[in-house]
């Protein structure tokens, strides 16, 4: 793989704590451009916390997050807004704004950041919905569609501003295996088409081996990274029983 000079995302020495409870301690890693990067680990290991730190929903107690070489953590409100524009996020529940239709949900970021005329925005929203296979649902409200469709609509919204990075928080949670597989295919397709960098928080072993280029695994006891690399390499080289237990539990069941 070609080593790009500036990583898409660079996290250095990041620590995070709720009240007095340390969740993450001195976590550092890099994400290369156009890579499907997984943050994995068991429940309560801090992977969602790490994601929330990266997108600025939580301020890290120490350390820094940089996007394309520009600091996000220390950015003033102007450049912070500029950076926010370059990434999209798909929340665990989809997090569509329930008072707006799907079309309006996707139109909102466009209205905020562009000066496009109203009907053009509407066309773009319809196009984005079609990309995730939701043509014809423009005027539906989020409560009127299924959980899997809400996630896809959330993805369409995350893609509204053609971001260079898309974050996913547990995309497979609450979905059946077939839908998960389709969502994975969609993710890879987005990466291949737009060269988007993809960061996914997940504990879905099938998805990890299916689409991940590289993974980091977080651990609850050490509050840090216990494995890093391509999923197959991690399984082949890691001596840590926690890592092997996590990634090979399927093999145990099958064997």
């Amino acid at each position, binding site marked *: 793989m070609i080593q790009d000079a500036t990583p898409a995302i660079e996290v250095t020495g990041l620590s995070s704590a709720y009240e007095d409870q340390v969740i993450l301690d001195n976590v550092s890693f890099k994400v290369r451009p156009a890579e499907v990067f997984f943050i994995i680990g068991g429940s309560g290991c801090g992977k969602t916390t790490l994601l929330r730190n990266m997108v*600025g929903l939580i301020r890290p107690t120490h350390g820094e997050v940089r996007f394309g070489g520009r600091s996000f953590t220390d950015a003033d409100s102007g450049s912070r807004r500029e950076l926010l524009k370059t990434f999209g996020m798909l929340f665990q529940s989809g997090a569509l704004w329930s008072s707006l239709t799907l079309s309006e949900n996707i139109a*909102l970021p466009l209205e905020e950041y562009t000066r496009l005329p109203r009907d053009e925005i509407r066309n773009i929203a319809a196009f984005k919905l079609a990309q995730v296979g939701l043509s014809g649902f423009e005027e539906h409200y989020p409560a009127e569609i299924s959980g899997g469709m809400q996630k896809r609509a959330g993805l369409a*919204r995350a893609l509204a501003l053609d971001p260079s990075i898309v974050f996913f928080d547990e995309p497979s949670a609450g979905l059946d295996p077939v839908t998960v597989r389709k969502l994975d295919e969609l993710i890879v397709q987005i990466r291949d088409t737009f060269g988007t960098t993809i960061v996914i928080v997940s504990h879905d072993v099938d998805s990890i081996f299916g689409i991940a280029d590289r993974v980091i695994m977080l651990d609850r006891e050490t509050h840090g990274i216990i494995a890093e690399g391509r999923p197959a390499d991690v399984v082949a080289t890691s001596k840590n029983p926690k890592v092997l237990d996590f990634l090979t539990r399927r093999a145990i069941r099958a064997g």
Partner: protein
Amino acid sequence: MPASPETATARATARPAGDVLEVALGGPWRLSAETPRWSTVLGEARPARVRLSADGVSHWDTSLVVFLGEAQRWCGEAGVGCDTAPLPEKMRLLSGQFEASMRTAGHDDHSQSLVVEVGLSTRSAMRQARDFLQFVGECWIDTVRLVTGRTGLRWNDCLGEMQKCGAMALPIVSLISFLVGVTLAYSGSIVLKRFGGEIWVADLIGVAMTREMGALITGIVLAGRTGAAFAAEIGSMKANEEIDALSTLGISPVRFLVIPRVIALGLMMPLLALYAICLGILGGMAVAFATLNIPPAAYWVEMLTIVDMSDVVVGMIKAVTFGLIVGLSGCLRGLQSARNASGVGHAATSAVVTAILLIIVADAIFAVLFNAIGL
């Protein structure tokens, strides 16, 4: 011969054999039915050993495990040997687990010393004050940006909120303010009749409704109706990560959610209060006509001798203030809500409490203030 399942009950019979107490269990043991307790089976007996057997048990669940666990615990405490060998393997295992869980179960005392309580409450009060100031500051910054034209207002949202908190509140406001007018007229006339001044009921109601009750009633109704709705709506948006979705797009939740709602309430509140004043006066007029034989025209003329524009201005200043209070406390409590169902409920309750408290405090401050400037 075992009894039929309907009539059979759990049995535990204790039979002393030398210094060994043999406890034989039998019948179906179900949590939902009456089962023997260890203390009653033991009675006054103080054996040197206890031997438990369960050969006659036809069905068992946790109730049997509890019985065996208590027996084992008693034996442990009394230093008596407990022979569980005749029991089936599964029962032994589970009753052992039960007894262990009784020993390790956390019954910690969660009460704190007074000093710790005071410290924690002080810290929480300081945090609340800081959150409130920060929120008001954010609202202020976004309002300034709006006024200077650096950001736009989502007028559609604002109009939608106006309809919900204004037009749709008309029935309840009508009913309550009309009835308050009626009540005031009845209680006022009791006093006024004593010195033959029934006609002054018009002055009483005119002043009370215009300066005080119109804005106060509307404020309290809207605190319950709209303030709670704001808190619940924003609270569930927070639970559903919708607020986070706004933040990651760089859209300020204050600008997007709070400002349109507060503006809507600030505009609708004086209109509703004005309407409430009219209805209250109408209620008083009806009572005056029906029970005191004062014709509406006379009532109206009498009222206008005392109520003038300054009273209306006082009422409207109060109404706008109460509207802002209701809107801000509803939105603040919603944004502070915990991310779960009980958090949303708590947010709604606390929004209503905060709003009504602040309305009454503000009303008192206004009373002093208007008195001082002679309005």
